[in-house]
């Protein structure tokens, strides 16, 4: 073996190899494996946590979406019901308005009728009174002086007219 150049010795090379194999194996079993195991476990733990957080987030998003859908549905329903109740209220109000209009029309018609009858009665009364006055005046003309009777006739006629206007008002 000493014949090799540069003092190369096969046995010493093998001794170096043996030394390194012992060292590499020892370092692997004593240090590398436990540290790597710890690191892998921690990585797995954080990956698990990350996954759990992602799952929860997805679940929450799903829940939020379903809640939003429910809210939209409720809002739609609310809108529909509001429109419906508005329609009902409008119909009821219209009905009431129609009824009120009818009542008002009836009242106005009744008032007109009574006013007409009062007017007709007043006209008839005044005409009757005029007739009576005319009769009285004619009697007085026939009986008393013509001048005084004529004045009296005129005064009575004016009075009758005033009464008629007053009734009209």
């Amino acid at each position, binding site marked *: 073996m000493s014949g090799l150049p540069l003092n190369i010795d096969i046995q010493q090379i093998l001794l*170096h190899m043996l030394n*390194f194999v012992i060292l*590499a194996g020892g370092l692997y079993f004593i240090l590398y494996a436990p540290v790597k195991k710890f690191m892998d476990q921690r990585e797995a733990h954080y990956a698990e946590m990350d996954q759990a957080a992602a799952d929860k987030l997805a679940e929450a998003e799903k829940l939020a979406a379903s809640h939003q859908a429910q809210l939209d549905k409720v809002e739609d329903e609310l809108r529909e019901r509001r429109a419906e109740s508005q329609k009902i209220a409008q119909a009821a109000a219209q009905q009431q308005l129609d009824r009120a209009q009818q009542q008002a029309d009836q009242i106005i018609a009744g008032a007109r009728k009574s006013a007409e009858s009062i007017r007709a009665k007043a006209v008839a009364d005044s005409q009757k009174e005029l007739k009576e006055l005319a009769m009285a005046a004619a009697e007085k003309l026939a009986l008393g002086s013509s001048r005084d009777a004529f004045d009296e006739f005129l005064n009575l006629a004016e009075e009758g007219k005033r009464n008629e206007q007053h009734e009209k008002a």
Partner: protein
Amino acid sequence: MKQNKRKLILWLVLIVVLAAACVLTGGSGGETETVQEVMRDAVLHESGQVSLFGIRNVNPGLISAYVVTALLLVLAACLRIFAVPRFQNVPGRLQMLIELWVGTFSGMAQSNSPHHNKVLGPYIFGAGTYIFVSTLFEMFGLQAVTTAGRSIALPAPLSDINGAIAMGVLSYLFILSGGVSAVGLRGVGRTLKEFSLPISMSFRLFGALLSGLLVTELVYYYITLSFVLPVIVGVMFTLLHALIQSYVLTMLVALYYGEVSEPVHPKQEKKKDKKAVAA
């Protein structure tokens, strides 16, 4: 404050004067051998051999390798007993350092060989740690006695050519085993294609670490270079070497391992790819 400054200046001046006196009054060092002998011995270890438990004489690099292995295994055992059981999900400083240490090599294995990396991670973890620590080991200057009865500082294990060859050949065999276990005989073919790999890896390691050793030996040989310069050469050079060499070898092993253990794609897909490229 002024008095303190004066004292400091006086102290520094005294140091400089004494250092200059040492340099000027001394010879070229207390060396008993020429620089050529030192360099030759650093490369070949012909005269500076150490007895391995009285069984046989070996290069001091092998003793360094055993010391490094023992140190690393003791350190790993201490960390396993005292640090690893106290690991928490939110790491402290030591835990972060250990996780960085393991995670770097594990990540390198996963990124370079995504299909087949269960064994690659531990291998490059061991190799990277070994190269890094064994390169730094030469800084401690642990002493050993040679068979000639002289005291020597234990060198980096990989500056011994036998250590570098062992590392290179073992890495090549490991790549080969990865190829075989992933794609069978096709893996052998793929690995044999890179037949120069063990030589290039061995001699890259040996050359890189030996150059560091030689520069350090040269610097320490002359006492006039023994001031300030060793801080840069000894510490910075060795640290950079340790980092670069461990990165280079582990990266090469991971790359080649990934390449030879890549799963075989069906021919149709390849044809499609070629058509797409042509288009």
